[in-house]
């Protein structure tokens, strides 16, 4: 998987469907996207093949997605 494909996965609509990330979480969300892109580059530089990179990064994105969903729900509670 190339960095461009990862960037597409990181698109907010792919993260959360139609849900808009609240302002209070936006900075954290942006930072996560940047960190994942940095990680992809680091894994590539460490010599990992595309399949391993995709597996690792997808797992990281998937768990963040779940946490982000819970955080959004929590932000909307009060």
């Amino acid at each position, binding site marked *: 998987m190339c960095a461009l494909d990862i960037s597409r996965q990181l698109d907010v609509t792919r993260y959360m469907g139609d849900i808009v990330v609240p302002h209070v979480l936006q900075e954290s969300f942006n930072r996560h996207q940047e960190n994942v892109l*940095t990680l992809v580059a680091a894994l590539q530089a*460490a010599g990992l093949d595309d399949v391993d990179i995709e597996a690792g990064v997808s797992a990281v994105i998937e768990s963040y997605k*779940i*946490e982000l969903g819970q955080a959004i729900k929590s932000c909307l509670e*009060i």
Partner: protein
Amino acid sequence: MLDGHLTDEFARVAALHRYDVLDTPPEEPFDRITAIIKSITKAPMVSVSLIDRERQWFKSCIGLDVRETPRDVSFCTHTIMQREPMIVEDATRDDRFRDNVFVKGQPFIRFYAGVPLMTPDGYNIGALCVLDIVPRRFSDAQITMLKSFAQLVIGELELRRIAQVDHLTGALTRRAFVAELDRAVSDYRRSGTPASLVMFDIDHFKQINDVHGHQAGDLVLRHLAMTCSDAMRTSESFGRLGGEEFALLLPRTSLTQAAATAERFRVMIEEMVVPGDPPLKVTSSFGVTSLGAGCITSDEVIAEADKALYQAKNSGRNQVVTR
């Protein structure tokens, strides 16, 4: 500026405690990260290690059978004293670690690579680390990779912290506050540790919104929250349970002591002046209860404090009622 953060131990521990992550169960996002690192590095031990005052506690840990160790035998306690990763290629050749109990005994650590987990405000609260029982080297690329994973760990912690805090007032959200109360209830059931709950509500808050507008109402909420936060002890928790309803959880506090604290807060709020045009003044009504025989679940404790609060409202407001 940042390097001062490395030596300010009190602030560092406070930063760690703000995440409210110590002694929580294992969670998938962290376990996934350690599992991926283990798979990539082929190292037998990987951990997300958080350095508390006197101990090292693992949020995620592969290859070690413990959840925590004393801090003084921890490699990571050295890592958090620096900004850059700490690499120990062979612990038996390092004066700092050759006599370490985990080097001389199980699990016979020889290699350590740790990246500080630095919060956005510059405190190293722990380290993401890889350990091996044979000496080894990490390439620059592997170190960079570990740094990237460390950023993701901090990102996950930060996301939880943001979700726990009501962004208008900085108080805990209802969900996060009830989680704190649940912990106090568990402590009470396990060891009889007392705790009290103070619930309070701003009197006639609707009138403030109606007469002065919602911005003024929000300013009152923020000002009140700031006043309360400044007056709290670090062991206490402060939450916003609903619109203008707040709560304080007072660990190791009897009902009598809690009533005295509530009275102190009542007076503080009564004397508070919210700057604006015109400046605003408010009062609050308080309900106080303690964990005890009839109050052994979070719901029961909240219901009991709520009854006391209702009584305070019905008895003329701006007063403290205990139950």
